[in-house]
């Protein structure tokens, strides 16, 4: 790795060339992912299922099970310290404290054997060495902050006594109880009823603003992206294909995949609900094309795309990067756009 890529001060998180492989797969499931996140900023990570969003998030948290996962390259500087090369103990000191995560599966993410209050208090006791009593007091506090009705009674409830939405509120409470500097929320509402989804997302956004923490939000919901994101990273088959300020991504998407997702190109994708669809599907990892991984689905693909990997390069807009040989696309789409 070159010198000089270290995080400029002010970045909460700077990920450089994160590369993840699983034993038994001959291919990088995340390939040189790079992104950075300033204090209080929100980065939305979008892309179809199986793109590697979750394993990217888990790798940053140090929660990828190894084996089978191996991080073969890269750094993730969190407030200047590399999370990927950090020994277990100091990393665990950060987790649940300055660095927290909410998962996609509220129904199974809480331990069925322990009371809600104790599970939250445990995080406080672990990182602040306070008494169990003080821990429970803070748990009650944070349960109120995530607006759980009858919070006092919920302290003694077991997870199975709560609905999915309530459990996700508990998970949010647990993640926020120590007021982290960075929150990673991996599709926090996908498993919930549609009516609850908006509530939970609004709650997360509000708490984030309140606390001034940075957030990586993995989501399928482009409406939410437009609302809460400062920056967007579009992932396809383990690679970041386009990143940039939210306005640039929505008003001037450059990568054919991003175009398809956002649905601004009728011939590429039809908007169905909030997420546009793109013809075809992500190939399984063992059949990722050697060059640009989108080549099998891209209407602009040519021979070079099949051979060479397009690097992420800055467009004319500062901070807006795209990995496509044909960008900017305007010169090619004239005949395609209706």
């Amino acid at each position: 790795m070159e010198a000089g890529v270290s995080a400029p001060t002010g970045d909460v998180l700077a990920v450089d060339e994160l590369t993840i492989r699983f034993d038994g797969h001959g291919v990088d499931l995340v390939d040189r992912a790079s992104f950075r996140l300033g204090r209080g900023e929100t980065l939305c990570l979008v892309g179809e299922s199986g793109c590697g969003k979750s394993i990217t998030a888990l790798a940053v948290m140090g929660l990828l099970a190894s084996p089978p996962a191996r991080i073969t390259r890269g750094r993730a500087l969190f407030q200047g310290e590399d999370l990927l090369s950090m020994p277990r103990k100091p990393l665990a000191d950060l987790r649940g404290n300055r660095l927290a995560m909410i998962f996609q599966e509220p129904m199974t993410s809480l331990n069925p054997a322990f009371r809600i209050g104790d599970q939250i208090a445990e995080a406080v006791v672990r990182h602040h060495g306070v008494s169990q009593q003080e821990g429970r007091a803070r748990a009650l506090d944070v349960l109120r902050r995530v607006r759980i009705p009858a919070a006092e009674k919920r302290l003694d409830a077991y997870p199975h006594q709560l609905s999915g939405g309530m459990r996700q509120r508990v998970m949010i409470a647990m993640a926020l109880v120590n007021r982290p500097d960075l929150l990673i929320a991996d599709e926090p509402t996908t498993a919930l009823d549609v009516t609850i989804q908006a509530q939970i997302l609004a709650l997360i956004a509000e708490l984030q603003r309140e606390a001034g923490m940075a957030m990586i939000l993995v989501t399928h919901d482009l409406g939410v992206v437009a609302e809460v994101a400062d920056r967007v990273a579009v992932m396809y088959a383990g690679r970041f294909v386009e990143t940039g300020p939210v306005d640039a991504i929505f008003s001037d998407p450059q990568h054919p995949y991003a175009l398809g997702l956002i649905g601004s190109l009728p011939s590429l994708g039809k908007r169905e609900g909030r997420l546009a669809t793109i013809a075809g599907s992500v190939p399984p990892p063992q059949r990722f094309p050697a060059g640009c991984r989108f080549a099998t689905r891209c209407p602009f693909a040519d021979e070079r795309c099949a051979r060479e990997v397009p690097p992420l390069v800055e467009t004319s807009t500062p901070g807006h990067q795209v990995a496509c040989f044909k960008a900017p696309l305007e010169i090619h789409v004239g005949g395609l756009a209706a």
Partner: protein
Amino acid sequence: MWSLILRRLLVAIPTLFLVMVFVFILQRMLPGDPLLVMAGEERDPVVLEELRKLYGFDRPIPVQFLIWLREVATGNFGASLRTGAPVTELIAQTLPVTIQLAVASLIIALLIGIPTGVLSAVKKGTWLDYLANAISLSGLSIPNFWLGIILILFVSVNLRWLPASGFVSVFDDPVEAFRTTIMPAFVLGTGLAATLMRHTRSAMLEVLRLDYVRTARAKGLLESKVILKHALRNALVPIVTLSTLLFGQLLAGAVLTEQVFTIPGFGKLIVDAVFNRDYGVVQGVVLCTAVAFILMNLIADVLYIVINPRLRTT
């Protein structure tokens, strides 16, 4: 939960009835006449006939059974044909012996089985895991009586560290109780430890890949706490049930080990009774074992609910 207990107790009645029928019939199908054993040198046909009448053995078998049933129902479990001692008294003498042995064995089994099970799950696929599995496999395949004899030869005969036989109650002399119980308990315990280890290992592997274990790590808990608190607490649920059932087995099935170590326990009582055609004792002991088994099953069910919050409140 109370309704569960009540249901179980109701089911227990026909179960016990069937056990009684079986033991009664099987016993009378065995060759040999209890009176001959009892009468010893006395072979006078007139005396034998008298005795037969006295004990009701001249009646038809179904009638004998009904008489027994009536006696049991009124709390009379009969007496030994040989010594005349009441069966309840014999059980009261031998059951505590077996319970002490069973408790000691279970403690040894848990102390060995659970830590090795956890360790081999956490170190899955490493040489430690393979070693633990190999040892447990050999533990399962070594017969108890053989291990017992080897231990006696080595520890008692060669080294003269521990007594080879006998029994002392822990309430009489704890030290001597430890010295007499440890070897047979080790023999029984290691056999069970292998079973416990395998179940603990698979329960832990099951639990360790669940989402809430990841949540525990995401909180920043150290790995020891993740495993010993969050994972093990849930993996123990089936282990507690299993242990209770194993304890029931220990109460009934330590026959060979008790013989090897000459322990005057339940197993020895029943073996002697069978060889002597002592109908009353065999019947009483089997009935008692059946009750103990049913109780252990019930306790296992209740414990399962008690340690499982998801079931407790429903």
